[in-house]
Every structure is written in structure tokens, then in C-alpha cells.
């Protein structure tokens, strides 16, 4: 029988197996050793590996990121966990000015093998400061790798890959993915960076869904199927490096690209994927593009506005439909198709900001 884990369990298993394998791996962050250990992803690690290798930090994101970098320079492989990506903004100097540049500006004398795990929050009135998907900020910076897996399988495989990578890796999770289950082999394995996954095939439109939006894209695909549209759904998995080859193959078939991100679109991952697509196809294949992401405001807390702030399966389907039929969205999936349309579990609402 196929072994299934949640995304959170997959992350925990990857961490545990790598810590078993390599004594230089350590886990640090606010609440990694806690009765509510980062949604279970760090549960039991301190008991197993001891306080030296798994430790809570003071509230000091910039400083503790520097500590992680320094430990990495000395040969450790720290995994630094942030329960919200929003807090990583406090550590931008260490990440961008130090971690991303140490190797280059030392002419290769050192390297900084750190993994920065951070979680994009969503739902239950998280609000403006607990909901940001800021992966594009890191994609902008040479010297950082960025990965944002959407399945438990890839969560485990890319986390192991991240830990073994000799460079700083921003590991982006999404709060609503933690409860999602999927097949995960017990044996340790890596999923390489720079390889996108075609989650479902289709001939009419290519939907690239980042992180949690890969799941929404799959749901949208079911809606579209009933409207006679075949959507190919691609999960880039890693954002830096970005596997444009796979996206290009799909676009040569469909000629239509919809990129859906759990982040803003301006200078976002969706902009980059769209423009690289165009750079590759221009002169060779007509291409129509479209981006969806956070509304260009801060995330409001009240539910009716929050629902408008985020793209979801229905709006993705509408946008894809418009792209295919070359007109502004007029079509909406029928209400009744919602249940049937969901290939994954409905979002599990969670309460509280953590």
C-alpha cells in the first residue's frame, strides 16, 4: 500500500532523516522546540537530537540569521525556521548582503549552507503582516536559491536537497499545504532544483501554479474540463533556479500561459515566468499571457475582502477561459461544480495566527 504523509510530516521526516545522516545539521528558530512545534514539522527533534542541535532562539531575526550564517561558515548546516515569511523581512540584510554574497565576494573561499524555512500564512484574518508571500524578493537576488514545493513528496525531496546544498536556500512553505496528504516514500530521496513538474496535461492553456496555487490550479482544471478546455498544470517547484525548459515545452503546445502566484504580481515570480516565456517563444510561437496573484493591496482581515484578495480555483478557471477564448472573463464555473472540482482536500481553516 502506498505510504501517505501530510506535507508537515514530510518536512519533519526529511529533517529527521538528514539530522540522522549528518551531525552537522541543526534546527533553530522561534518555537522549533515547543508544544506546538511549527505545525508539527519539528516535533520530537529536540528529544532525539538534543538541545545543541535543536534550539529555540530569542526574538532577533537579523541576529539569528547572522548566527546561522556564522555556524554555516564553521561547517554546520543550520535550518532556520520562521513561522511567517513576513518576519524574514527583519533578516534581509543578513540574507541579501551576507548569505547571498559571501561566496562570490570571497572568490569562492567560503560557502554558506543554510536553509531558511518560512511559511506563507493564509485565512482566519491573518492580516497584512502574517500573510505575505515574498519569494520574489529572494528570486531577485543572485546567490540565493528559492524553492516552493506544493506536494508532500516534493516537500520531503526538496528539503533534503536544500539541506545538502552548499548554498543558502529559501524554503517556502504555505500554511494551507501543511495538512495536505500525499504519497511519500520512507527512504530518504532528493528532488533536484530546477525541474518543474507537469501535474496534469492539457492542450489549450498552460497554468503555472506556485506553491499552494498549484493545488488551486488543479481544481481550476477540473472546472475547465467541464467547459471543454484542457489545461496543463505545471508546478515549478523551484523558483531559483527556474525550469523554463519544461514550461517552454508546454507553451509550444498551448500557446497560452496563465501564471498564478501566492504573492503579488508586480516584479513577482509570475512576471519573471511570463517574461522568460516570451523571451523564449518570441518569433517562434504566438503566446498569450496572463498573471494572477494577490490583489495589489495589503491583505485585509475581513473574510469578504480576504476572499477577493486571493486568487482561487474559480477565478483561475475564469481567467484561463478568457485567455483561451480571447476575451475578458465572462465565464464562471457553475456553483455546483465546486465540490467535484476539488481534487485535493478543501482548505482546512485554521484559527489563530500561528
Amino acid at each position: 500500500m502506498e505510504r501517505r504523509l501530510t506535507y508537515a510530516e514530510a518536512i519533519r521526516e526529511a529533517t529527521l532523516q538528514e539530522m540522522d545522516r549528518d551531525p552537522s545539521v541543526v534546527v533553530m528558530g522561534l518555537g522549533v522546540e515547543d508544544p506546538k512545534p511549527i505545525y508539527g514539522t519539528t516535533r520530537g527533534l529536540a528529544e532525539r537530537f538534543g538541545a545543541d542541535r535543536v534550539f529555540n532562539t530569542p526574538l532577533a531575526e537579523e541576529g539569528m540569521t547572522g548566527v546561522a550564517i556564522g555556524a554555516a561558515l564553521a561547517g554546520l548546516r543550520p535550518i532556520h525556521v520562521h513561522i511567517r515569511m513576513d518576519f524574514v523581512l527583519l533578516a534581509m540584510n543578513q540574507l541579501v548582503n551576507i548569505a547571498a554574497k559571501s561566496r562570490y565576494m570571497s572568490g569562492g573561499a567560503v560557502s554558506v549552507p543554510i536553509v531558511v524555512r518560512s511559511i506563507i500564512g493564509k485565512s482566519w484574518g491573518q492580516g497584512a503582516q502574517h500573510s505575505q508571500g515574498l519569494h520574489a524578493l529572494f528570486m531577485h537576488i543572485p546567490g540565493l536559491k528559492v524553492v516552493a514545493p506544493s506536494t508532500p513528496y516534493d516537500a520531503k525531496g526538496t528539503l533534503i536537497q536544500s539541506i545538502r546544498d552548499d548554498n543558502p536556500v529559501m524554503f517556502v512553505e504555505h500554511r494551507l499545504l501543511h495538512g495536505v496528504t500525499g504519497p511519500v516514500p520512507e527512504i530518504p530521496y532528493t528532488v533536484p532544483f530546477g525541474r518543474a513538474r507537469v501535474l496534469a496535461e492539457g492542450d489549450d492553456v498552460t497554468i503555472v501554479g506556485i506553491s499552494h496555487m498549484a493545488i488551486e490550479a488543479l481544481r481550476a482544471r477540473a472546472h475547465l474540463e467541464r467547459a471543454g478546455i484542457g489545461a496543463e498544470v505545471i508546478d515549478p517547484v523551484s523558483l531559483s533556479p527556474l525550469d523554463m525548459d519544461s514550461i517552454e515545452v508546454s507553451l509550444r503546445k498551448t500557446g497560452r500561459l496563465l501564471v498564478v502566484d501566492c504573492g503579488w504580481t508586480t516584479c513577482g515570480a509570475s512576471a519573471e515566468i511570463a517574461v522568460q516565456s516570451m523571451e523564449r517563444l518570441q518569433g517562434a510561437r504566438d503566446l498569450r499571457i496572463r498573471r494572477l496573484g494577490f490583489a495589489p493591496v495589503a491583505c485585509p482581515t475581513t473574510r469578504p475582502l480576504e476572499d477577493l484578495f486571493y486568487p482561487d480555483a474559480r477565478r483561475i478557471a475564469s481567467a484561463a477561459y478568457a485567455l483561451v477564448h480571447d476575451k475578458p472573463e465572462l465565464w464562471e464555473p457553475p456553483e455546483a461544480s465546486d465540490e467535484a472540482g476539488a481534487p485535493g482536500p478543501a482548505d482546512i481553516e485554521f484559527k489563530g495566527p500561528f
Partner: protein
Amino acid sequence: MMARLYRSVRRIRRVEEEIARLYPTDRIKSPVHLSIGQEAVSVGLCEALRPDDVVFGTYRGHALYLAKGGDLRRMMAELYGKATGCARGKGGSMHLIDVAHGVMGASAVVGSTIPQAVGYAYACKVRGQEALVASVFGDGAVEEGVFHESIQFAVLKALPVLFVCENNFYAIHTPLAERQPFDNICERARSYGLPAARLEADDVLRVHERMAEAVHHIRRQRAGPQFLECRTYRWREHVGPGEDFDLGYRSREEAAAWMERDSCVRLGALLDEPARARIDAAIEAEIEDAVRFAEASPFPGPEELHADLFREA
């Protein structure tokens, strides 16, 4: 004054108990960080402030908002996500604001309003205004570098700020001793050369007395900021309506010692019964009204999504 203090503490306590009671209905779709047990700090502080003084707080902000005079109806509506909320439903429990009453806003990023309080005080000072600014934050915030940067500038420029650290001994579930080398927050503050004192904040009268003294000094002597560490205790879980003694990170006994010294009960006992009953009844009526207001209010319409990003002339 005793009646005022009692009313304020009791009102906050009851509002938050009511929030906790309503929470399972899922109509408050917002994380709530309750101050139950910690009310004496906000009340003692705000009763020592003038209406034109301002406060900056945190996501654990109901108590400070109410104590400073923030509108209860609009707070309740905010928790419900309604258009009549103090932030028109866009901020929720963690971002209460009532500028008219000097509640200048709160942040869900620990420590991040501290420098704003200092900046506000800078403006007051250079414009010759008498207003004073209180910055309220938790024991965790002291660990952030920005706390130091803020206090450094406040002392350097001798700004009218009262720094109030609500030391409830935990940041989420991590005790202070796991995060800070020593339990000596005051000493660290004092190293910048400002007066800093620790007080047990289980007695709102004492808290108020010390706050009033500090406020008086800051306002009259214009010699710069002061720092007060208020030792207090959170009775409920870090976020949410319930208790959390089952989690194992702290014991019910530890809490019981604080609950026994409940400021609200002790102060209530000092009032004469009919006066107390009148206050209590008025509070209940006000809460009922606020909840009704919140429930009856409309949600913001879809056009609200794009409003309020920028202020354009």
C-alpha cells in the same frame, strides 16, 4: 479614581471574556490575543495619561485600546470584520486603532511599534507639544535589536516617551530564561542612562501610582524617557479564547498564584457594593450593545478591497 480604575479593569476583563464566549461561534474570524490577567498594566498606564497623549501597542491590544478610550463598538465590529470597525474590517484584532483617542495603532510584528512611538515623541518635542507617548510591548520585544535602537535615540534626544514592558514571562510558549541571559530587562534599559524600574503589576493601584509618577516626570522635567517593567501574567492561551495548561509549558499552579491576586476582584472589593453593581451593570449593557452593533453592521463591500492603500489629495 478607585472607581475609575475598577471600571476600566472590569470592562476590559468582561469584554475579553465575552469575546472568548463568542469565539466558538466563528463569527470573530480573527486571531485574538487576550490580555485577561494583564489588564492592570494598560489601565494603570492610561489612567495616568491625558487625552492628547498617545499609545502604541501590540497585537495583544484590546486592553490598551479600551483603557485609552478606544471605541468599544468599533472594536467589536473590527473583530467581526465589519465596515463599521475601527479599521473598517481591514485590521482585525491585531491592528486596533483609534486616532481620536490616541490609540495610534498596533503591529503583529513583535517590537515593531517601539520606534514609531519614539518618532511620534520626536515630533511632539520639536513642535513644543506637551503630549507624551507610551510604548507598550512584551518581554519578547526587548530581544529585538530595534528595541535598543529605539531607546538609544529616545535618550539621545531626551524624548517624552514612557516605555512600558509587559513582562508576562513568556513569548508564546518559551519562557524568558530560554531567551534572555538574565531576568534583568531594567538593567539593560538603564544602561542607556534612563530611569528604569520594575514593578509587580498585580495591583492596579500601585501600577497607576508608578505610571503617574513617571508620566509626571517626563512631562514636567522634559528630561527624556523612562522605562517601566511591569511583571504580570497571561491567564489564557497565547492566542485564542481558551486556557493552555494542558500544553505543559507552564503549570496551573504558577497561574493560580497570579489569579489569586486578581486586580479586578481585589479592587472591586474595595468599592461599596451598590456602586460596584452600577458599574458592572453599565459595563454589561455596553458590551451587549457593542456586540449587537457588530452583529448588525454590514461587511465592507467589494469596492473596499482597493480603497485605503494610498491617501491621495
